[in-house]
């Protein structure tokens, strides 16, 4: 689909639509600029037409150049393997825009984020509470992502966070966190219960906020990869892949096929160890310790395999702009395939153990149901979305090497913990098949790699990490230094869905629901 096509498509849904400009910088990216008054209607038209949730919505501080902020919304056209980016200018003297959260719910959290980070007010927004900059420690009127932000020595508190309260006979609140009983990230959960079932759950996150997006600014792309790898430690390869993809698009680097295969292998290895870890975690949360221990042995085997192949258990420091540092020679290929063979056998046993336990199946079946309609409204992505029947997987829609491999997307319908467990089992097996296939296709040819030539530009990088799509929108200057980097981890879309999945379940089932989502705290909080 090119510019005229997409514009005529929007015109069908939105008569009288006119764009200021429309350009296609990359085959998979279309940028449309519109008047602020037309922005919301165009978003709504794209949201219904494609259909796509708001994949990203963020602001860029362009005041140095044009005395304006710019707001961009990113939608995905899955059928045509394209991203559609919609932009508008917001004047800096009265920074505000009309909120679209009431019409498109998946924009809601993004709008709150723009408000707290840039001080651009979404008018008529249903909720303007801050997400990451907690009122208890951060003053009002200090917007860290503005270019003229200065670090204050001792910031002051500005108030308290207001939780949604459920009142009535026999309703009581259970506060949990931020420090939890397990070895896990910090987050606060406020349960309102009447008797045993949960009638409302509000999660307050942001406890691991480290100001990552600001840290990217002014960094050289080679230094920035290290930060990208530390955004979510269990998806470090997915993040570094999405980041390098964005940089490679801007600099116009084409990666050798051999490196593309190697990257795909590492991405799948990351998926495998995390999926098996979650299956063990779900067993722990129902008190079934044998398969949990068994799963941790499999996870350890994959981590050790990672270390043998790359020198790092979490695949940090492996990826770089233009290629990959780890080389698959014949010995390493042998290690990979023979280890995977054992891992697959063990995995088969693990699945048998879980499947043959009636009490385990009884716990996961129909627990934590996330209905498809809810998931669509919230813009749920990735594995959780697929378990609820949303067919979305970047490996299918933006296939690359996955096309020849005849990638088969796992999909569920029921949206309960069992569906998410089954998706993990299917994807683990599919990943095994893909790795075997890709490993056979790698043939060592030493190719001359050129030093990347830095360029100024913007691009959207993406990768389907194990949780779902990781998106990086990147803007660089002439020297290759980063001017703005917007990161969206799949956890950001999916955390709010957990509150809906837990409704009606009893509190002892909450850890199980939580583990079946297994979302990242640090990826969400940035």
């Amino acid at each position: 689909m090119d510019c005229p096509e997409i514009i005529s498509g929007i015109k069908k849904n939105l008569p009288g639509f006119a764009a200021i400009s429309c350009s296609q910088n990359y085959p998979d990216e279309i940028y449309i600029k519109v008047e602020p008054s037309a922005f919301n209607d165009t978003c709504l038209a794209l949201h219904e037409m494609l259909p796509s949730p708001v994949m990203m919505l963020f602001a860029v501080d362009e005041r140095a150049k044009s005395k304006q902020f710019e707001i961009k919304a990113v939608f995905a056209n899955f059928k045509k393997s394209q991203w559609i980016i919609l932009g508008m200018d917001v004047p800096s003297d009265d920074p505000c825009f009309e909120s679209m959260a009431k019409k498109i719910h998946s924009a809601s959290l993004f709008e709150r984020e723009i408000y707290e980070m840039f001080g651009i007010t979404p008018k008529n927004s249903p909720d303007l509470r801050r997400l990451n900059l907690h009122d208890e420690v951060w003053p009002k009127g200090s917007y860290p992502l503005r270019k003229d932000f200065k670090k204050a020595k001792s910031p002051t508190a500005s108030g308290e966070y207001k939780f949604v309260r459920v009142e009535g006979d026999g309703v009581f609140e259970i506060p949990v966190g931020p420090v939890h009983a397990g070895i896990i990230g910090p987050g606060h959960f406020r349960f309102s219960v009447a008797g045993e079932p949960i009638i409302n759950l509000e999660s307050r996150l942001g406890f691991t906020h480290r100001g990552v997006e600001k840290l990217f600014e002014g960094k050289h792309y080679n230094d920035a990869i290290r930060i990208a790898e530390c955004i979510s430690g269990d998806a470090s390869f997915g993040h570094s892949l999405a980041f390098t993809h964005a940089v490679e698009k801007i600099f116009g680097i084409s990666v050798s096929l051999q490196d593309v295969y190697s990257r795909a292998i590492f991405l799948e290895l990351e998926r495998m160890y995390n999926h098996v870890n979650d299956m063990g975690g779900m067993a722990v949360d129902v008190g079934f310790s044998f398969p949990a221990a068994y799963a941790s042995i499999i996870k350890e085997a994959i981590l050790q395999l990672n270390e043998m192949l790359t020198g790092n258990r979490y695949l940090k420091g492996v990826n770089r702009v233009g290629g990959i540092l780890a080389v698959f020679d014949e010995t390493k290929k042998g290690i990979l395939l023979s280890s995977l063979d054992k891992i697959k056998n063990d995995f088969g046993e693990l699945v048998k153990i879980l499947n043959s336990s009636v009490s385990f199946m009884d716990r996961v079946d129909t627990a934590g149901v996330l209905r498809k309609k809810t998931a669509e409204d919230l813009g749920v992505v990735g594995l959780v979305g697929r378990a609820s029947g949303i067919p979305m997987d970047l490996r299918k829609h933006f296939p690359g090497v996955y096309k020849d491999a005849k990638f088969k997307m796992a999909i569920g319908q029921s949206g309960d913990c069992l569906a998410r467990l089954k998706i993990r089992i299917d994807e683990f097996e599919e990943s095994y098949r893909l790795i075997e296939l890709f490993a056979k296709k790698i043939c060592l040819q030493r190719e001359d790699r050129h030093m990347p030539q830095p360029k100024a530009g913007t691009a959207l990088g993406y990768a389907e990490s194990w949780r779902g799509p990781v998106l990086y929108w990147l803007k660089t200057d002439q020297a290759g230094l980063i001017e703005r980097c917007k990161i969206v981890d799949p956890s950001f879309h999916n955390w709010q869905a957990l509150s809906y999945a837990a409704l009606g379940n009893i509190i002892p089932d909450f850890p199980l629901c939580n583990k079946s989502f297994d979302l990242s705290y640090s990826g969400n909080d940035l």
Partner: protein
Amino acid sequence: MRHILKNRILKGVVARHIEPDLSIEMESIGSELRSLIRKKFGRSLHIREVDTGSCGACESEIISANNPIYDLQRFGVNFAASPRHADAIMVTGPVSKNMLIALKSTYEAMPDPKFVITCGDCALKGGLFKDSYYTEGAVKDILPVALHIPGCPPSPTTIIKTLLAFLRQDV
């Protein structure tokens, strides 16, 4: 049940032999306090883990240290669910401003005698995030730290060996 029995027998004992390594160079406190900690906790140590903004890799490795292969529990080290049951807290992450209060209250909730361990490069000096507007920096400026476990993330072997070298006087 059949599958569990079969796999239990087939897998056997998977725990790996780990020698405490006394040559490890540790960033830790003076010898007097160290011998006191050894005396009090040398055979049984309960740790509460607090994440103050780590990426999750340190947590993953701490969990791995408890898996059947590394099996930290056999050396008398346990992870407690509540600070009230803990002798030490293990802090990961560069201390996000939002976690400062929670970190201090967790420490205060522990009964005496108690000490603090930091785990991972972020907790030592803030790591990659030390220049951020939202991190408090080194844990040792906030709480009295007795031991640091280095790495990004530290491997389970490093975690176990550093802990054991710290706790054991004569191995």
